């Protein structure tokens, strides 16, 4: 594959490509930040990128949203299955976020900081 082919291919599948980029950004946020809230934000970016990826699978060129109208003949609709699945996925991500935030509230109360390294330091100190 030449460079031009690769670029054309990425252009054609740009949603997938940018979803992957977002995934990497989210992962990077999770790995490189010590602030726990930022970790949770990174987690959300990651999840959102996967939702974008999944919903993009269901698109059909020229398709409409799958809301039928009685009496109107069948036209092109997008694939409804990925959208329906991602509705579930979004709720899952929201639940995890809510629970993670409640844990951060408690962590702040116990350690007085939301910095991961600081917490590690305090823990290491009181165990030995």
């Amino acid at each position, binding site marked *: 594959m030449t460079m031009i082919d690769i670029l054309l291919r990425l252009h054609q599948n740009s949603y997938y490509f940018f979803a992957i980029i977002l995934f990497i950004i989210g992962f990077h946020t999770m790995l490189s930040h010590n602030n726990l809230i930022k970790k949770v934000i990174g987690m959300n970016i990651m999840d959102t990128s996967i939702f974008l990826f999944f919903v993009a699978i269901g698109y059909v060129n020229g398709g409409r949203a799958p809301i039928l109208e009685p009496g109107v003949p069948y036209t092109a609709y997008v694939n409804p299955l990925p959208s329906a699945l991602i509705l579930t996925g979004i709720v899952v991500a929201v639940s*995890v976020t809510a629970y993670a935030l409640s844990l951060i509230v408690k962590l702040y109360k116990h350690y007085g900081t939301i910095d991961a390294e600081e917490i590690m330091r305090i823990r290491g100190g009181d165990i030995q």
Partner: protein
Amino acid sequence: MSIVNHFPVLAVVVLLLFAYLMPLLMRWRKEWCVPATLGAIGFSLIASLYMMWQVMTTGPFMYQMGSWAPPWGIEFSIDYLAVFATMTITIVGLIVIYYGTQDLLHELKEQVMGWYYTLYLLLMASMIGMVLTNDLFNMFVFVEICAIASCGIISIKESRECIEAAFKYLVLSAVGSGCLLLAIAMIYMVTGHLNFTYVAQALPQVMDLYPLNILVSLALFLVGLGVKAALFPLHVWLPDAHSSAPSPSSAVLSGLVIKVYAIAMIKLLYKVYPPELLGMAPIMNMILWMATLAIIIGSMFAIVQDDIKKMLAYSSIAQIGYVFLGVGLMSESALQGGILHIFNHAIMKSMLFLSAGAIIYATGTRKLSDLKGIGITLPVPTIAFSLGAFAMVGIPITNGFISKWYLALGSLDVGRPFFAAVILVSSLLNGIYYLPIVVNAFFGEPEGAVAEPRPLPRQMVVSLILLGSGVILFGVFPSLILGVVSKAAQSLLGLL
């Protein structure tokens, strides 16, 4: 249509229903919480035993949600592996929560007791759903419930270590879930199906068109489920989480939860991905090496621990390695050994954690070096602990011996005696860290709190005796469980 036809779904839904009812009960009928929990899990146990009987007599069957045929609706597949896993989950879960009704009283605050039962029921329901389901996305949903519920039963305890451990576990398993969802998206993109059976039919046809997609999805599944199952390089969350949690939580997390993800992995590897693909990439070899490292390194870490629960947690990392060793060897006896080890380790490890919990309850100490002479003052938990230790080492007449025997046989079958040697070495390592504790406990001079322990409640003693007799029973009569295990292994390998 009688109610028994709906046992597959009722085994999950009755647990969910009681979990939904629990907040109402704890507000207005507090004393009903415990019987409701025990009753719901008891119902699931009956349902799973009935399903087991049904599968053993008439063969595997399917249950379609809402009567929608497979590619459109969700279905449960009740096969040998699923009924085996359901039975393990419900039996061990029932015994652990029966123990917990007493133990939790001193570990948790009174106002969160009801929430503990809610989370426990949801955890049980999600585990049963995960092993029964035959749909990729449905599996993801149950994985998520299981992940949050298992963090919940850690963070419910009143200590800052628990919250920190739960947060680490939650973030890592969220990364794992992200990988799972991405893998499901890739599978769906190239096959157009989510049902295991249909995906398995479609994959060989599209394998040449999109090889990279399928391989990356397999790698993502391995990472996603590996994080949750604490497979070796991804195990970093486990020691903290399993050692700081309340004892019943530790028992159920170590005994059941990590195994359930291993079962999901077995289903994906053997039922969904075509064998040609597994030959194309060294996935199975990778799993084998990760398992070997897990067995050796987990045991080594366990040797240096002085905290009883931390030692057990590190030993879990080693034990999940055995399960994956059985998965990776791809021979009938090894797969039997791996699946059997799921059951055996569930009994052994929950018994070890519960007896450790009983010792902590009675004496208040978690330090191994303080437990001299505890066998004289607290015979039941110490004997249970010793039985568990013997089973871990793999001494004959305990059930641990049987599964190690099958694993070793399997590795010899495929001509890889190296892995049999690994099993032998790890048994020695297990002996190094378990046997001195046993010797110390029976031949030491009790002092301090160990000399005058609190008396143990009846529930704790009964649970420990039940689990201990299970260790002996399945060690002396392994054929009780081997029937379904060998059927499961044969059907996974396509020999049935």
